[in-house]
């Protein structure tokens, strides 16, 4: 995946907020990428554009030689449907659907989903699949959200601060899960965080500040999430 001169400007009355400034980088398939940066640095903006949820002001994104940034709304919807799995900070499950139904909600509309039971088993929720979100803890809900994103069998799994609302231990377990998915299913995973230590588990780290990518490096030896402390 290649990103060239990607920019996003917001017009706020008189002022223009430059949330993203000429971001340029490349990601290889199967990499575990961590985007690091302080609040307001444009991480979410970048991720949303990569996920086809928002359009850039300028710049290009190429995914397997396809230029995503040329897509119209219809194509973007299809792109989100088939290529992207999204995990949100606040899980955002449908309150009146059970765990398994939440996953099915996503897989119903995509081309070649994975086996749902298997995925739920893999995220450790095999025995809770018929529970409603309100009957589950935050960590469990986030697992459902991950299962929902993974079961679509996307090329790219995008996670916007998946541990943001969770305690340390649960956060670690979620990161382990993501790492496991990265390895088992060979998915490209991008995780946003403002916790520097998490970067240690990444193959590649993108550091951001005020809308710019200020650093882009590969970890020689990514450590196991269990070994992270913050």
């Amino acid at each position, binding site marked *: 995946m290649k990103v060239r001169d990607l920019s996003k400007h917001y017009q706020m009355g008189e002022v223009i907020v430059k949330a993203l400034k000429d971001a340029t980088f490349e990601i290889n398939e199967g990499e575990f990428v961590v985007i690091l940066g302080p609040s307001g640095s444009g991480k979410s903006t970048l991720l949303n554009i990569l996920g086809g*949820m928002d359009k850039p002001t300028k710049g290009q994104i190429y995914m397997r030689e396809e230029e995503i940034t040329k897509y119209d709304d219809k194509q973007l919807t299809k792109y989100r449907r088939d290529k992207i799995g999204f995990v949100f900070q606040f899980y955002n499950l449908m309150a009146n659907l059970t765990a398994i139904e939440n996953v099915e*909600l996503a897989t119903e509309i995509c081309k070649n989903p994975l086996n749902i039971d298997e995925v739920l088993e893999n995220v450790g929720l095999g025995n809770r699949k018929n529970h409603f979100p309100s009957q589950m803890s935050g960590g469990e809900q986030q697992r459902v959200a991950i299962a929902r994103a993974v079961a679509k069998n996307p090329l790219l799994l995008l996670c916007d601060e998946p541990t943001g609302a969770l305690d340390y231990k649960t956060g670690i377990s979620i990161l382990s899960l993501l790492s496991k998915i990265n390895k088992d299913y060979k998915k490209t995973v991008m995780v946003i965080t403002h916790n520097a230590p998490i970067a240690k588990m990444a193959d590649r780290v993108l550091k951001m500040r005020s809308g710019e990518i200020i650093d882009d490096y590969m970890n020689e030896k990514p450590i196991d999430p269990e070994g992270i402390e913050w």
Partner: protein
Amino acid sequence: MNKLNLRLMRLIKSSKGQFLAIMAVIIVGLLVYTALNMAVVNLKNTVDYYYDLTNFADLYVQVVKIPAKSIKDLESKQSIVKAQGRIVYDVPLKVEDEDEKVNVRVISVPDSSENINSLYIVDGEAISNKAKDALVIEQFAKARNIKVGETIIPQIGGKQYELTVRGIVASPEFVYLMEDEQSLLPQPDKFGVIYVSDEFARQSFGLNDGHNEVLINLKSEKDIDKAKERLEEELDKFGVKRIITKEEQLSNRMISEEINQLKNSSNTVPLIFLGVAAIILAVMISRMVRNDRTSIGVLKALGYNNIQILFHYIKYSLFIGIMGSIIGTFTGMILSGYMTKMYIRFFNIPMLQVNFYYKYMFLAVLISSIFCILAGLWGGRGVLKILPAESMRPETPKVGKRILLERINIIWQRITFSWKMVIRNIFRSKKRFIFIILGIALTFSMTFLTMHQWDAFATIFNTHYGEFQRMDYNINFSKPLNDNVVKDIQHLVEAEEIEAKVEYPFEIIYGWKSEVVNIIGVKSKTKFYGFINQEGTEIELPKEGIVFSENLAKFLGVKKGDRVKIKSFIPEREDVYMEVKDIIKQSLGMNAYMDIDYMTDKLLDNELATGVYLNSKDDVKEKLGNVKNISSVQSLDDLKSIFQQFLQLSIFSIGILVIFSGVLGFAIVYNATTMSINERRLEFSSLRVMGFSKKEIYRIITKENTIMTVLGILIGMPIGRIMIRSVEEVFSNELYTLHTPISLKSYIWASALTIIFVALAQLSTLRKINKLDFMEALKSRIS
């Protein structure tokens, strides 16, 4: 099942109350739609079928006397298929109670079986003994409990004839049994019809081989007007009094009128209900979309497109629409059968043509679906505007603006904290409050309209009998008599006031419009009428010229000062032109009035009275009951009691209308309050955390609702008045002029009922506050 649909089903389950409330509105709307539309068609078909079967006459020619041969001659001519002579006279009937005046119309029937207006035998058999047998019309037989085999005694030309009741019959001509245009309601125990053989009638009325009425069937109804004109000329030599077309025929006119009114309501009422349901749905769905902002964002992020998501919400309203319309239309269909039967019993039609017209069921579902889809589209249009990236960000809280009232310190400082909250709330969520207020306003105006209608009938009646007509008794002679009769009557009863009157039907023509009405001649300074003109001043009858009742003037398009042509039914009389001197208010019936001397001079041949008006404390009925030459003694009290009965009948329909308005009001207020509680869970939870009790929160809601109810009622008043005036416009006809002042009582009743409906709706939301788990509400911010 599709997971999105599954979500929908659970959504519906969790908002059962609102769902059912809206569905009730739709059910009512389509129930009315189906029931009335089918009843209209069934009623029309039944009537047509009945007319067809009995050869209903196209024209009634009333003459002085026409020989049988001349009637036969008509038949070969042009569009006339059949002409049939008969004898028709109104005569008194001798009954047990000698004070009671009962009149019957004696009508002769020919021997042949292929008759015009042929009779339908309900009980017994046809006439066999031509000299002694009679048939009695069903309504009259029922009202007076006359059975086959009994004897009835009509007095013809002063002579009593004892006739045997051979059969009870129904006639297409008297489906609605009224003596004439002047009687406002049927009085089946006071006026009836008996059928006798042609022979008997000719002998007893002394007409030899003649008849005094000819019934005519035409090839096609299109020829009616032409045939009428031609017959008027051709039969002039037999003294044509009046030619009545099928359309003008009293009973037929009453039925058509009823069918038309039914038809009017069959489309307007459902439209109101569907419109309200659609508005509630649209508001509800737009709220839902707003609350589901994040979920919609997630769906979009997952790759659902706008149409799929929009359709998800449209399905919600469509589901309500289809369910409601199916239930409504099925119950409506069942009801239409009963309604048709009820009408047919009321109208005395001895047959029934009830069919189910699936067209209306189909249309009901279709119309309801269209309304609901539109409501869904309108309410759900917000889906399109939600951007997935943005919806994930928490909504920026609304800037807490100060409301105007807060700036007026003097007032603001005196308001208690909870009132401050209430007032702020109202101003902050204006749209919601406007919606609720309009809902209450609509409920109020519907109830108000119903209450007024109820009141209006009584008022019309009281103004007509009492303020307009001021006589205790209205006495009609069986034949015109000279002035001496007034003195004779004064000898018989102690009269406080007595005046002679003349009353005859004339055809009044203005431009191309004409109408047959009774012109009444009384003293110009009569004590028995309160003539009030359109400017509201009481007037005396002018010494010359004629005065019209308001709706006669309206019907003919006549203004004060116009000249009209008056055509007499007395054969050989020239038409008279006369100036309309004034137009007076009359709420029941249509008449013209003249000074009695001017009237006899201009329009009549002699100075004979047709009756007297009388005020007396005496027992007039008993004393004048069997006086020769008096055909009827009608007292104001009689009329009042008839009207009371009529009112009792309408209590039923008024009740149904009030229930309907209640359904509307309940649905609106219940839904709005529920929506508001759902949206404000966070707010209420914060209050609970701050230490407010459930009671205090409930009190805040009650205060809000009180303000809205008061505002709703205030706004509902002008809306209701507009509704009342337009209903009056639509439903005023030749018989009623509905233009009555709105009484305070209507305001009070409608307000009280509206408050009850609102209170009921609020009570059912009480539970929701009780169940409000504030910890969960605060937590659920997250998911």
